[in-house]
């Protein structure tokens, strides 16, 4: 908006931010959130494009899962459907993911109180919980595989694996973003860590809510 800097500056900093990122959708925007020296509207660093970017990315990801969900609901009615019994471990994983959202918020609160150490610790806890969730999902797959239920077994199992797999992939992007925010040295004159953390938190909570939706779909829709 007003106060756009020159092309070179913009390219320079964004290029670096994205280049370091994992290459997943909203994290890429979030990563870019690392720095950008523009004084934006209302005199704050112009971080608003990262908020917009992550919001639009979320809508897009939502459409991806909605397409699969509608295919799931339609496919369910076409026969040869053997429901997958959801491993109990998934409930534990869900609890882990919900906890991670809570610790993320606590970390952000520390950050806004400029308690850098507290932030770092809680942020690390969040990251570990995220990784733990991913490992838990892998173990759940192993359990199913142990029962002889594979991707190709029947339509229901195909959908189970693609929902959990696609979600895990997106969450992996979220973990990368968490690491990025933790490791990157933000220039305080540019976009702050506070903003980067907030942008990533949107994505993380969205992943959380998406997981609840998918779980409900898999549990109730079987």
């Amino acid at each position, binding site marked *: 908006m007003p106060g756009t800097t020159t092309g070179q500056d913009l390219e320079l900093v964004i290029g670096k931010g994205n280049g370091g990122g994992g290459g997943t959708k909203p994290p890429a925007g979030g990563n*870019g959130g690392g720095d950008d020296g523009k004084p934006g509207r209302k005199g704050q660093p112009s971080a608003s494009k990262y908020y917009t970017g992550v919001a639009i990315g979320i809508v897009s990801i939502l459409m991806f899962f909605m397409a699969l969900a509608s*295919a799931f609901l339609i496919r369910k009615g076409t026969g040869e459907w053997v429901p997958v019994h959801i491993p109990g471990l998934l409930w534990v994983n869900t609890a882990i993911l919900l906890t991670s959202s809570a610790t993320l918020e606590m970390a952000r609160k520390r950050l806004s109180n400029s308690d850098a150490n507290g932030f770092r610790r809680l942020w690390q806890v969040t990251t570990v919980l995220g990784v733990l969730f991913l490992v838990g999902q892998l173990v759940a797959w192993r359990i199913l595989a142990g029962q002889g239920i594979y991707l190709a077994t029947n339509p229901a199992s195909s959908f189970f694996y693609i929902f959990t797999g696609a979600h895990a992939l997106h969450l992996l992007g979220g973990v990368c973003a968490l690491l990025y925010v933790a490791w990157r040295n933000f220039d305080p004159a540019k976009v702050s860590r506070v903003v980067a953390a907030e942008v990533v938190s949107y994505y993380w909570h969205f992943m959380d809510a998406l997981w609840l939706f998918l779980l409900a779909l898999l549990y109730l829709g079987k």
Partner: protein
Amino acid sequence: MVTYDDGGDASPSSGSGVFSRLISTHHKTIGLQYLWLALASVLVGMVLSALLRLHATWPDRAIPFLASIETTPERFAAMRLLHGSLMVFFVLTAAPQLGFGNFLLPLQIGAAEMAFPSLNRLSFWMTAGSLVGMTASFFLSLANGINLWLASASVFSLAALFSALNFTTTTIELRTKGMTLPRMPVTVWAWFVNAILSMLIFSVLLAGCAAVLSDRLLGSNFFSTASFLAAQPQNLVRQGSLPILWQRLFWYFAQAEVYVAMLPCFGIVTHLVATFSRKPVWKERLVVLALCGVGLVGFCVWGYHMFATGMNPYAPLVFSVLASSLGIPAAFLLASWLGTLWNGRVQLNTAMLFAIGFISLFIAGGLSGMFLARHDLARAAVSEEFVIGHFHLVMGVAATFAILAALFFWFPKLFGTRLNEGLGNIHFWMTFAGVYAIFMPLHWVGLLTQSHVLGEAQRAAIASAGSSIRTFVTLATVWTVSAQTLFVINFLYSLLSRKQAEENNPWRATTLEWSIASPAPEENFGKTPPVVYRGAYEFHVDSELDFVPQHLAPELPAEKAH
């Protein structure tokens, strides 16, 4: 990804080498890259279409190139797919939105860059990769070819999603001071609406591609082949399953692609018609609403294809209503173009000719579309050739005309010189006559050969008439394709014989990109971003002034508008 590299392309034009241009994150460089990609694709795709027609007309003759690879119907279908993929993905989708959009969107809203330049570069290279993949899939065996094609389509979807994210965020966040939504040029509106549409449908397409690919490679059961084929019309199934899957999948995507390809063209044509009629866009607000309407309908029609194919008896009716309701925004657009032309001081240069050609093709193609939107009629009385005639006219050729119009119009801003008007005129008329000579007869053939009401004897009589029409169509195809050499000559000649500096605003246009030098300088607007004071189409506002540029402050309008 060293910072220095990215900073280095701040001045690639001053000889910092091909490589730094290739990895540039600069929006104008990327826009041009998309345009070069589209140019290469359109030339190959066009030659393919001529080969296809030639082979269909004289199947016994050995045609060089075709003779070596064309041994089975599958190869022929694969060739059609290659033609379609190149044209739809890398010309119709890439050129108006990604090519011109990347180059011009930041310029027209007064921004220095896209919102996420590195993401933009990633999109381009993924698109280029998917072009390589789709082309390579043609040379593989059928099964591997389909897999590679699907993978390439997934990559393309992902790239389109990243681009759409970029376009949307840029339009929302990076508009310069004074560039309120009502003051945005219609082109920007079209790119914006199209980006939102792409955002929604390409996620769905990505999900679909991923699921089908997983079915094929990992044996999953999302759309198992048996139930998929059972849902298809019988006349398609009997010819054997594989080419059908191949074709049907392609049209799955193509339905939504129609709107993605057309939306930016609507914007471009509206923009050009106003500029060269020296009049404001007639009912500009309604035009913007109509663009949103096209986006909405495009999304809903897509939803029909995704969710309902062969599953719900009411779905064809829903689709029919939706497809027909596209007529409403289309009629608004048409009314606005004609209203703008009405009493305008029309300048018939090549860019304007192509824009008017677009309108003509859009009307002609749209009329036959009304037949097809009726689901019962379409199946009963109309064969494939009618459909081919329809969508080529309204989507393929019309969009190509819009692309050419845009190229003639923005060429000074892209390359700092104008295309030759004389050659351009001849090229336009030859092409215009050629495309009508191809696609109108195809409509007739389509109607004739499929008339179930006729008896056997009458059909035999029609068949011979049909074959001579087909020959005519083939000759017209060869004519039209040859006419494009004029364009290539014009293009190369204009580029190579670039003389002194082009004036900033050769068309006396109002939007921001014309306020800076031609070709557009690397830093766009320099240190001070422009300020916008007025709407995008202030032409001939009173008898004294021909036009008032958007960046002109209200106090001194008379001074600058020469």
